[in-house]
C-alpha cells in the first residue's frame, strides 16, 4: 500500500447529486466502485447546488466531479454545472451518470461533459471513464 501510494498521486473525485433529485442508490454504488479502484471519493450526497459543489471541489482539490442524474434534469443541470465550473476557473472534468437518453448525449458532450455513464455500466467502464477523463 505504501509503495502504491508513493507511486501515483491519488485520484480525488467529488460525487454529488445536484438539485432536488433524491435517487441516490446509483451514486452510492459508484462511490463504492471508485473506492475499490483505489480512489478517494469525497461524497457530498443529496441536494447540492452548483455553488456547493464548486466550493467542495476547490477545498478538496478534486481531480474530477461526478454527478448522478435520474430525474430528466440533465439537459438543464449539467450545462449549469459546466457554467459554474467555468465561472470559478475550475478546469476539471465533469462526469455524468444516471438516466441519460441516447438522444441527449451529444448535447451534454457539446456542453463540455467529459463522460456519460448509463445504467448498468460495468464497474471497469466506470473506473476507466473516470481515469480517462482525468488523464485524457
Amino acid at each position, binding site marked *: 500500500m505504501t509503495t502504491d501510494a508513493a507511486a501515483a498521486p491519488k485520484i480525488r473525485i467529488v460525487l454529488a447529486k445536484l438539485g432536488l433529485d433524491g435517487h441516490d442508490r446509483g451514486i452510492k454504488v459508484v462511490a463504492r466502485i471508485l473506492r*475499490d479502484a483505489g480512489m478517494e471519493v469525497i*461524497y457530498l450526497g443529496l441536494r447540492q447546488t452548483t455553488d456547493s459543489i464548486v466550493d467542495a471541489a476547490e477545498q478538496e*482539490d478534486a481531480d474530477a466531479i461526478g454527478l448522478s442524474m435520474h430525474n430528466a434534469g440533465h439537459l438543464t443541470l449539467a450545462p449549469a454545472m459546466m457554467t459554474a465550473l467555468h465561472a470559478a476557473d475550475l478546469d476539471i472534468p465533469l462526469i455524468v451518470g444516471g438516466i441519460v437518453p441516447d438522444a441527449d448525449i451529444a448535447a451534454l458532450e457539446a456542453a463540455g461533459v467529459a463522460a456519460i455513464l448509463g445504467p448498468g455500466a460495468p464497474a471497469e467502464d466506470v473506473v476507466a471513464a473516470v481515469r480517462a477523463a482525468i488523464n485524457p
Partner: protein
Amino acid sequence: MSIGNLDFDELVAAARGGNRRAIGRLITMVERGASEADQVTDATHSHTTGAHIVGITGAPGAGKSTLTGQLTRLLPQLGRRPAVLAVDPSSPLTGGAILGDRVRMDGMAGEDVFIRSVATRGHAGGLALSVPGCVRVFDAMGFDPVLIETVGVGQVEVDVVGAADTTVVVVNPGWGDAVQANKAGLLEVADVFVINKADRPGATDTRRDLELMLDLSHVSGQEDAAGYRPPILMTTATDGTGVHQLWDAVLAHHHHLVSTGQLAARRISRLRYEVTNRVEMAFQSRIQQAAHHLELDPGQSPTRLAHDLAQQIGTISKSARGDA
C-alpha cells in the same frame, strides 16, 4: 483564478491572499508527502500564528461530523474563522476511501469556513500522517481555530492528542458502564467530554459514569497533576443544543493551557512528536525496502535476521549521511 500555471511561490502567495484552490493545492502537496510536503512546510511554518487546534474524536457514529458542522456554523458568528480537517479511513486493501464527513456538515458551514477531507492513507492511530502539515497550512493562512475530526476510533487510537491543543471526546448515552469508563486509553486523554445524542435515554447514567471516572482521577492524583478536571457537556448535535456551551468549555480549556504555561509545553511535545514521526517514516520505508530484498527460508532465526537487518540499515543511514 486558475492555479494550474502558477509556480510554487505564486501558489503560496495566492493561498495567503485567500485563494481557496491554492490553499487546497498546498494541502494536496502536504498529503503527497516527501519533498513536496517539505517544500510546503518550509514555506508555511514561519507564517503560523499559533491557531487553537481542537481535536474531536470518538467512536464511529458518535456525531463527530455533525458536531463539527455545528461548530463551523457557530464560530463565524463569534468572529472566528475556522478550518476543518475531516479524517476518514483508507481501505487497507485498495488504498481507496469514501470521505463522507461533508454530508453531515452540509448546509452548516459559513462563507469563510474551509473544510478538507483527508484519508488516513495507511496510517493507524486515528489520523493521517499529513495532519500536522495540513494544520500548519491552515494556521499560516489565518484560520483559527483548526478543528481536526478523527476517524471513528475505538479505545486506543489517541494520535489526536499529539496533534491538538484541546481534545474533545464524544460519547453517546448507553455507550458503556463504569468499568468501561475506567479503562485506559481514549477517555484518559479527554480535555472536554461531550455526551452527544443527549436527548436519548441513558444520558444521565453515562454522565454519572464519567463523573465517577473523573472522581477516581482525583483520588489517584492524575487530576491534581494536571490541575484541571475535564468538564462533561451534553449536546444534541442534530439541532445544535449545547454546542455553544461546548465551545465555551473548549475555550476555557485553552485559557487553562495558556495561564498554566502548558500550551507552550504541548506545542513543544507536538513538534517533538512530528519530528520523531518523520524520522520513523523515513526509516520505516528503508526497513521495508531492505527487508524486501532479504533472501529468506522458513528455517532461519528471526532474531538473527532482525539483528543483521538492523546493522544493514545502520550502515545505509551512515553512508547516506556521508553522501550528504
